[in-house]
């Protein structure tokens, strides 16, 4: 198993798409998380400006990162998940892998573990670059540097990883179902952008859909983020990732996300085990 994980890690590590997606995600996180809010902070009364800037200082690191994870980050790692599984179908490499020595379960398992490790790297890279950005802002503003507690940062990284893992696993599942990349990316983005967004927007008008919306990835992701300090006001201004509720408890959100992760992985493994490899 460790050999297979090492093999799969080598594949993702040497694949340009991994690094391109990481670069895009970090750039997005920096731009929308720090650069844009900083340069657009109102010039008005000093107190208003200070309140805006405070969100960008090291003390607010965890909430600043998590604001962008449930939606922008999710859709981006969904693409990563699609590429990792869809590529195998595109290149026909499953037949090569499945004639080595290990069972299909083990190989797909190794692939998913490798993806999980990469996502942990993504989460840590996001925190590291965000910490750096907040430090720069503190220095520019001459503000005192106080870091959030280590336990909050760890929980933040954990929540980021869990949200990433669910979206990426959805990408893997879509790729496995469609046995390719193109359709899976299309459907994944359609779902993440349009369906989740429409449902969340509808919630404002029709209370009937509330239980449904509470089950969506975005609702659970944002609920998880909210327990770590992301303000509901901030999520409402999140552009196409806009979310105004309903929020569920942190425990419920964590359990729901874990259940999604397990379900996506189980269906993927079951599918790949059962089907013929062309």
């Amino acid at each position: 198993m460790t050999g297979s994980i090492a093999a799969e890690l080598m594949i993702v590590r040497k694949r340009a798409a991994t690094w391109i997606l990481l670069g895009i995600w970090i750039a997005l996180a920096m731009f929308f998380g720090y650069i844009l809010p900083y340069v657009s902070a109102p010039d008005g009364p000093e107190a208003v400006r200070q309140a805006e800037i405070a969100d960008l200082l090291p003390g607010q690191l965890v909430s600043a990162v998590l604001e962008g994870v449930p939606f922008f980050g999710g859709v981006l790692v969904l693409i990563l998940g699609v590429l990792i599984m869809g590529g195998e179908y595109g290149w026909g490499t499953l037949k090569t892998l499945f004639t080595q020595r290990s069972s299909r379960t083990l190989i797909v398992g190794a692939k998913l573990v490798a993806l999980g490790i990469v996502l942990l790297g993504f989460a840590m890279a996001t925190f590291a670059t965000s910490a750096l950005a907040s430090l720069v802002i503190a220095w520019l503003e001459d503000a005192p540097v106080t870091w959030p507690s280590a336990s909050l940062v760890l929980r933040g990284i954990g929540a980021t990883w869990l949200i990433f893992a669910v979206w990426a696993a959805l990408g893997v599942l879509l790729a496995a179902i469609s046995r390719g990349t193109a359709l899976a990316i299309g459907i994944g983005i359609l779902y993440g952008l349009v369906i989740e967004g429409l449902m969340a927007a509808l919630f404002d008008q029709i209370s009937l859909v509330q239980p449904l919306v509470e089950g969506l990835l975005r609702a659970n992701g944002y609920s998880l983020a909210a327990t770590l300090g992301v303000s509901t006001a901030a999520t409402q201004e999140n552009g196409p990732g806009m979310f105004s509720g309903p929020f569920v408890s942190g425990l419920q959100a964590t359990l729901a996300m874990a259940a999604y992760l397990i379900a996506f992985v189980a269906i993927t493994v079951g599918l790949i085990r059962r089907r013929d490899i062309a």
Partner: protein
Amino acid sequence: MNAVRERNVNAAAPENGRDRERRAPAYDAYVDEMDGDTLVIETRGLTKRYDERTAVDHVDLRVRRGEVYGFLGPNGAGKTTTLRMLLGLVRPTAGDARVVGAPAGSPAGLAKIGAMIEAPAFYPFLSGRDNLRVLAKHAGVPEARIETVLEEVGLAARAGDRFSAYSQGMKQRLGIAAALLKDPELLILDEPTNGLDPEGMLEIRELIRSLGQGRRTVLLSSHLLGEVEQICDRVGIIRAGKLVAEGTVDELRGRDWLRISAEPLEQAQSVIRRVPGVEQVSRNGRALHVTADPSHAAEINRALVSAGIAVHELRRERPGLEAIFLDLVRDHETEVHA
């Protein structure tokens, strides 16, 4: 199938140079004691149906340890589908297969099998060497094997290039290298010389021949009859999913015959008929097709000359596998249209 088998009964299977050189005494021993233990591949009623189409139809394949087995058939006959089932990539609709003593596709079996099915499939952004590294890690093979197999297939010099930049022949070589990585007991190669230049074909054939020596078994699919004729100990011919003939190349090929052109032909025919040892004489265009042991050639010639017949040509002919193959395939075509 019966026709071919019948022909085998009285065939004295002439030993030629290739056979003597290829068949080590050990091989004959394996063949003699052909019991369960010597069968590396054994399928029973192996069948695969896709909707209405039956791709593989009750195939009973038996491949013995140490032989190079050629799996021949026209396009769409079911070769690749059969090989996929042997590797567990495709689940049979009916029947079962045991490969190297384990059920098809089980990890225990796969550990002893090296395979290349259809076009070689690798990660395009990795070098040839890195692709092998990935497979070695998955298979638990020491990395030292990688350079060995790269040398073996003649790809060492370009092993650092990305797979996507390889020519078709180089991709094919990498596929064979990957199949060799585990130093497998059984090699399953689906049209291994596909896309190679003549020199490459020759190299790979020699490689396969050398690999097939000793206890290693090679199952090779092809529609190149010459190739199969050159490197295989035994051949199975598959047509429309059914195994229609099986035997050594010589068994399938039947006996050598004599081609004689002489003047006048009618008279020559009746003279030859009277020569002892001649079994059959028939017209074959402007020549005669004589079924007789080729050692009678001199006698036949003498009889013709003393009867005052001008002999233009007297040649020993070896029926090619191709003729038999085409016969079998054409039989089928008439079946289909009937």
